[in-house]
Every structure is written in structure tokens, then in C-alpha cells.
């Protein structure tokens, strides 16, 4: 038998269903990059399952020629969990959005990550409810104008990555819909991770929240607003690669190389640190419009650590029970209680 890994083409992964996102939607790019990423991960098509909730992003499974399950609002992680319990041999992806994953489904997201279920959660964050036609979401910035936030949203937005880290996720990353190479490589890293992987994808809603990530995608300005994280590398960004992040006590600050600091003064990224404090710190960086020394928003792998998965720990417990019983349980033993009596 050959041991070569199965190879897939993007065509193998394409269904006969017409893709129905709005023209210009960021989801098109994510779909294309996902197919590209899967051509190299070495998992046969029949062992890949996409599970989604409700929302624009959640139509994703219909367009992937793998197994797919379009479930109910916010609950995709639960179906994914059940599927992994039934068959730990499958690669299970959850596709969710900011409304689906952070609002109605916030609880399930937290607990799937905390358990370190081996599922890959992709959260398409467009900071708006799209499928219901434009209401503010839990990740909408303060001031977001929408039909349900006339005059601008005044609710404090939630940070998906901070939630993921607080939930003890073992793989936490962020990428951007139009940054195609970075997107492909981030998806591949998530696919390779054993345990819960959480990837926030900045995704542009061309209809209801257009250009919300312009600062991070516009070629003219993005270099000053995005920090590409690389494990073991100092945190440097900016058009001229001369800005960096330095820690001042417990507070991070933006500094300029050669001006107020040297390269050795900068924070070095450590994605594999057991302690998630650095990743947490990075998850709090927010782009501040019209501020000269705004923090950049980091993309890349914030955290990637190895811990036993839920499925592995459960398997160990099951095996231990069988060992203790000196073999698998038998029905005839099942019925025998401590106290039985016979009527003849």
C-alpha cells in the first residue's frame, strides 16, 4: 500500500452549488484560500467536515465538496464536538461569524476551546450582522452606524482573541481576508494544530460595513497599522520597518528604532509560551484612528501550545475503564446488581 499523502485540487473541493454571497464579499477570498490550503494538508476529502451555524459565513459548507453540516445559530461548536466524539479520525472545521460565534453562540465557543476539542474554529469577523441586513454586532466598534444603532453603537465591543485566550485555546491566530498568502499559511497552521484552533479572519462586508478594515488592507497605510507576528522575532512594523513594540513595566508602547530605542529593546514574540500573558497583551492592541502613535493590530499566530485534547483524555479514561474491568464490558455482567434473587 502506498503511503503517499492524498493530493487534492481546488476543483476537487468545489461543489455544484452556486455561490450566493454578495459580489465583492470577503467570503469569496476566504473560500478560495481555504481550498488552496486544503490541497496541501494531506487529509482526504471524505475525512474533512465543515460545520457552520447561521449567518453569511455559515453558508460556507455548501460550497466545499467535503462533508458539511449547516446547523443552527451559534451552536456549530456543539455539533462539531459530537462529531469528534463519534469519530476522532475526522478533520473538523467550524465556520462562524461575529454574531453567530460571539453573541448567540458565545457560550459554546468558550467551552469548546476550554476543553481543547480538536476542532478548527474560523471566525469571520465583519463587525456587523449581514444576513439580517445590517444590525450592529458584539464586535462592532463604538460609533458604528447601523439600523439598530442610530447615532452610532455605544456598546463596548468584544475582542474575539481575548475571549479565545481567556478560554484557554491552545492555538489562537488572526489573519485578513484579502491578505491571501497570510490567510493560506494561517489556515494551514490551524489545520496542523492538534487541539482547538481559533482563527479570527478580518472580513469585509461590502454592503453593510464596507472598509471597516481599510486601515489594515489599504496598501498605502496598512504597513503602519498591522504587525506581522513571527515566533522568535522582534515586533517590528511600519512602512519603513522602523517602528516596534517595547514593554514599559506592564504597559506596551510604540517606539521608533534608532530614535528612542534599539532593536534589542523590543518585545520578541513567543507563540509557544505556556503562559498566555504575552498573547493576551497583543490581543488588546487596537488601531486608534487619527492618533500618531497608534498601536498596530497584530496578525499571525498569537499562541500555539500543545496540550492533550479532550478526545485523547477521554480515550485514556475509556481504556482505563476497560483495563480495570479486565476487558470490554459484557451485557450479561451489566444486568447483575449486587443483590439478585431467584424465583423458581
Amino acid at each position, binding site marked *: 500500500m502506498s503511503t503517499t499523502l492524498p493530493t487534492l485540487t481546488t476543483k476537487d473541493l468545489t461543489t455544484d452549488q452556486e455561490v450566493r454571497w454578495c459580489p465583492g464579499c470577503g467570503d469569496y477570498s476566504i473560500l478560495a484560500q481555504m481550498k488552496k490550503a486544503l490541497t496541501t494538508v494531506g487529509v482526504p476529502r471524505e475525512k474533512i467536515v465543515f460545520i457552520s451555524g447561521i449567518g453569511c459565513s455559515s453558508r460556507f459548507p455548501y460550497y466545499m465538496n467535503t462533508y458539511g453540516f449547516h446547523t*443552527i445559530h451559534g451552536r456549530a461548536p456543539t455539533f462539531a464536538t459530537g*462529531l469528534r466524539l463519534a469519530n476522532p479520525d475526522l478533520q473538523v472545521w467550524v465556520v462562524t461569524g461575529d454574531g453567530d460565534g460571539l453573541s448567540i453562540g458565545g457560550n459554546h465557543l468558550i467551552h469548546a476551546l476550554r476543553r481543547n476539542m480538536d476542532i478548527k474554529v474560523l471566525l469571520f469577523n465583519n463587525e456587523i450582522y449581514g444576513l439580517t441586513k445590517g444590525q450592529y454586532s458584539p464586535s462592532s466598534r463604538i460609533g458604528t452606524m447601523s439600523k439598530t444603532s442610530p447615532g452610532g453603537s455605544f456598546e463596548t465591543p468584544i475582542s474575539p482573541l481575548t475571549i479565545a485566550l481567556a478560554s484557554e485555546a491552545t492555538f489562537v491566530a488572526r489573519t485578513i481576508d484579502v491578505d491571501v498568502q497570510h490567510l493560506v499559511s494561517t489556515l494551514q497552521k490551524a489545520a496542523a494544530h492538534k487541539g482547538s484552533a481559533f482563527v479570527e479572519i478580518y472580513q469585509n462586508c461590502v454592503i453593510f460595513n464596507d472598509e471597516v478594515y481599510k486601515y489594515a488592507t489599504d496598501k498605502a497605510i496598512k504597513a503602519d497599522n498591522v504587525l506581522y507576528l513571527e515566533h522568535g522575532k522582534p515586533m517590528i512594523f511600519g512602512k519603513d520597518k522602523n517602528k516596534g513594540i517595547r514593554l514599559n513595566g506592564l504597559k506596551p508602547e510604540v517606539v521608533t528604532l534608532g530614535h528612542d530605542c534599539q532593536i534589542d529593546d523590543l518585545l520578541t514574540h513567543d507563540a509557544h509560551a505556556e503562559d498566555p500573558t504575552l498573547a493576551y497583551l497583543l490581543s488588546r492592541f487596537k488601531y486608534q484612528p487619527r492618533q500618531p502613535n497608534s498601536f498596530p493590530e497584530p496578525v499571525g499566530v498569537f499562541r500555539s501550545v500543545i496540550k492533550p485534547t479532550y478526545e485523547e483524555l477521554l480515550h485514556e479514561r475509556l481504556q482505563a475503564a476497560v483495563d480495570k474491568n479486565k476487558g470490554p464490558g459484557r451485557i450479561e455482567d451489566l444486568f*447483575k446488581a449486587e443483590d439478585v434473587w431467584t424465583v423458581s
Partner: protein
Amino acid sequence: MSSENGSATTTVSASPTLDQESTNGHVHQRAKKIETLESVTIRFAGDSGDGMQLAGTRFTDTSALLGNDVATLPDFPAEIRAPAGTLAGVSGFQVHFSSTDIHTPGDTLDTLVVMNAAALKTNLKDLKPGGILIVNTDGFETSDLKKAAYKTNPLDDGSLAGYRVIRVAVAKLTVEAVRDCGLSPREQDRCKNFFALGLVYWLYERPLEPTLKWISEKFKKPELRHIMEANMRALKAGYNYGETVELLPVQYHVAKAKLPPGTYRKITGNDAAVLGFVAASQVAKKTLVYASYPITPASPILEGLAAMRHFGVKTFQAEDEIAACGVAIGASYGGALGVTGTSGPGVCLKSEAINLAVMTELPLVIIDVQRGGPSTGLPTKTEQSDLLQALFGRNGDSPVAVVAPQSPADCFDMAFEAVRIATRFMCPVFYLSDGYLANGSEPWRIPDPANLPKITITHPTQPNSEGTHLTHEVGEGEGGGAGQFLPYKRDEFLARPWALPGTPGLEHRIGGLEKQDVTGNISYDPANHQLMTETRAKKIENIAQTIPDLEVHGPADAELLVVGWGGTYGSITTAVQRAQRQGLKVAQAHFRYLNPMPKNTAAVLQRFKKILVPELNTGQLCWLLRAKYLVPAVGLNKIQGKPFLVSELEAAIEKCLSE
């Protein structure tokens, strides 16, 4: 004459015998009168912390081991420890044991054991006139009387004159008996349930050995040795006290029941459900995935299954009820046996997920151990009020199968049926147990594993599009070409194939959006939606082809049919049998399958002039029968968190026939 409780019917065949045997190693000093009774109902009542559930359970086990038929009714408050000594904190355990076949825990009490004033106040009304009342006098101090809202001490004011009162300083005598065991005063006091139990064992001439064995197992850890010793001493002290003091001039004897031959054990409905679902999964060669969120009175099923890992059972304690249902469905999607369990409030939360299983046509079993509702309701009390919720509590036209076990032991058999229907018909199945079945117990004849029902499950491995003609061509995509897999192509029962992720060549997508017939692609076509809605309903109706007919028990000329469902079987059966023995023209039919109902239901109902439907709700089955079969059914409805008394049903039957 019936053995079922009620002062009017209990047979007391006074048959004085000389007791020459030695029980429990005590040689009796003198000849003593022993009366033989056909059946006896006892209730142990005390504070929640007094160990009454334990005393009752031990008494039941001992009686079952002696060969009596038994039926039990635990009754406890929702609070784990309500303030000690208060009326709200009273916990009771009722056991009916008999030398004949019985079906209920008994209407009224032959013997009541009360550990404090509050227990007397809340339980005395159920004691028969002339019944035996064993009172722990130490629970009647001024403060106890005050907490129980007694103005005068009932032990002194003559209000108990109609009973045979046995006064025992249980607490003081217990402390005396365990004095040198090295226990704290609090620990000494906690042994008093065993003293009371020993006393009752003496009264009903039960052996101590099974309980002594249980104590030695339970407290076998070296650090618990002193507790073991103390409990054993308390138990023996109670027994010996009864014998020495000769509290009553008689002892009572209840002979073995004539049960069908076989090996028996005692079982509660929740335990039977645990064994049933494990056994069904083994027979079906499937991994059981049980996902649940702790809720009274269903939690013991989650706990019981968590101890079944050596059978490959995977229990999952979910973050909430919705997640539990999602996990079960996800597990079924992956080819395991997905089961979720809860009570009524949890079903409310699971509704949307259950509907996804309806739409995606995946197997799912939902165990609903019903309790008093609405809302949080009466968490520890029984009710049958989730029937219509199970049938209709979801958006859209959403047909599901519904089954309901009729006794604690039947919880085993119906688990097989729930699994069989869910996997054969690819649909959700509600399994409606209730608090009475869940916690109540009876003897269970252990089945021969070789004779368990067979459950055969197959999964497709090949495309199935050959020769398929689509009824609707309007949906998206193509579908129907050779070599394709069509997830909604149906078999003779209209069930769709259960294709598992991981199977090469059968990749497909499912979801909650309406499906195109045959292909399963998304479809908004109006005619297709009507076809699919009707098909989902027809599929559930087809289950009727595989279930037994409704049985009618009664004379051919019966005028009245008493129709029940689920957990009321025992009380209704007893009442109907008594009425029949009195010559009343009454018959009985009992539903274990609520949706679909058995094929012959209409024919059965139409044979009778009168139909009485006793239910522990406001008339849900009655409503269904009237709506579906246009029959003049009338309800007998009790919504008190308690099962029917046989006498209540008997009165209703007589009234119905005399009208």
C-alpha cells in the same frame, strides 16, 4: 380480594404461630404472635438530613431479597438541606411490599415512622385509622414543635388516639448504642436512621444481614471503620429494642410473592434507562454518546452512564441544554448513537436543535424525565405534562416519534424501542419518563442477553443515484446523475440513508434549510416544501407499521375504557382490576407509543361507550384522542406532583359508570 393497600382491602389473616426459629442470631425468649399480611405499606419520614431515603431503600432491598414484590415512592424536597426540623425540609420514602403482584407504592400507610414533629404534621394524613405510628420522641422538643407549627404537643394532647403509637427515644437510644465508637455527637446522631430501620425490621420480621452487608461495603475504607461499626450497632440496637421491649404484642409476616420464575433485581426507572440504553447500543454495535446537562430528576442517568466507560459509553457533561442536544446530534451525524437527557425546562431549550434533527433526518433520542411545570415548577415531583410539548413544542410542522415507558422496569424495554425507531426511521424520538418512574423501584426480571431485541443498522458505502428520477427538478444544482450520492433518497418506510462522514465518494452537505426531495440540495420551491413537509409526517406515521397493537384488558361487554399513558400504568391497572373484580364493566388500554399511536387505536376507542383518561396533567392525551379520533373521552386530572391513588381512580371509574 386484592392485596393493594387501602384499609378496606388489606387482608389481615390472623394466624398466630409459635416462633421457634432463630432470626438474626437472636433466640426468642417466648412464644409470640405473628400475623400474616398480604401486603404492607410503610413510610419513613424525617428531616432531609435524617437519612430517610437510605432507610427506605435498604428496607426495599431487604424485602425484595426476601421475595416480596415491591414498589416505592421516594418523596423529597427540592432543597438539599432546608432548615432542619421545618415542614419544608421533610423527606419521605414509601415502600409497598407484598406477597402478591403489585403495581403501586400504596395509597395509605399501614405504618408511618416519623423522626420529628414536622414529619408527623406533613405525613399523618396518609396513615390509615388504627395504623402503626412509630415516633422518635426526641424530635418533639419545644423548638421542633414550634418549627412544625404545633401549638400543643401531639404526643400529649390526645390527637393521636386513633393510631397505635409507639414512642421511642430514637436519638437518645442511638447515642447510647454507639457511645464508644469514637464518633462526634453529630455523627452519633446521624446513625439514628439505622436504629429506626432496625426497629421496623423487627416489626416485619426482616433479616438484618443484607443491610449489615451493605454497611460493611459502603464504609469499608479504613478511615470509615468507626462509622461502619456504629451504623451496625445502631441497626442491631433498633432490632433488639423492638424485641426486648415488645413494643407491640405481634410481629407481622408478609410471604414471598409468586413472581414468574427467573433471576430478579430491584431497579429504579432511571437505572433501567441506563441499562437499557447501554444494552441497546451494544446490541446495535454502536458507541453510545450521552450528552446531558445536570437537571433534576434526570441527572442519575448521566451519572449512571458515566460509570459505563468499559462499555465504550461516552458521556458528555455539556455547558448547557442546547449544547447537550447539539453534541448528541453531532454524534449521530458521525455514526454514534446520540442520546440527550433532561427534564421539561431542558426540552424547552433543546427545541431548536431537535428541529434540526427533524430536518436533517438524523437519529436522536431525547429522554425527558418529566417533573412538575411550568417553568422551574416542582423539580422533585412527578407530572406528565410534557406530552404536548414533545409532540408540538417546535416551530413549523415538526413530527417526531414519542414513546413512554409504563413502569420502572419498562424503562429498560422502551430504551430499545427508542433506539430502534430513531435509527430505523432516521428521526428524533422522545422518551417520556417521569419523576415517579425515575425514582420509584420494582423487581425486574433480568433478561437473557441472547433474547434481547435485535437492532440492525447499516450505512451506505456506494453512490445511490442509479435509476433515480427526481420528482422535482426545480432546486439548485443538478443531482440525479449516475454515480452520485443522494442523501434524501428514501427507502420503503421513507427513511433516508445514514451516510457517515469519512465514507469516500459520499461527500454531501446537510442543514436546516429546506431540502430538495432526493438530492437534499437547498430548495425554496413551494411544491417541494409541501412534498417534504408531508413526507416527514408520513415517515413518522410509518413507524406504526412496526409497533404492537394497543391491548385491551377487560370483559367483552365493557362499557367504559380507561386509557392512560406512561407512568400511571401501575395505579390504573390496580384500580381497573379491582373494579373488574367487583363486576364493573370496565376495560383498560395503556399507551406506550404516543406518536404514532398503534394502528388499531381508532378501532379500540370506537368500541366503547365511555372513555376515561386519567392523567397527571390537565388533559393532554385526552385532548389528543378527542382531536384525532372524535371520541367522547373525558379526563381525570391530578396536578399535585404526586401519582394517582388507586382509590381516586376507583372512585372515578364508579362515577363514570353510574352516570
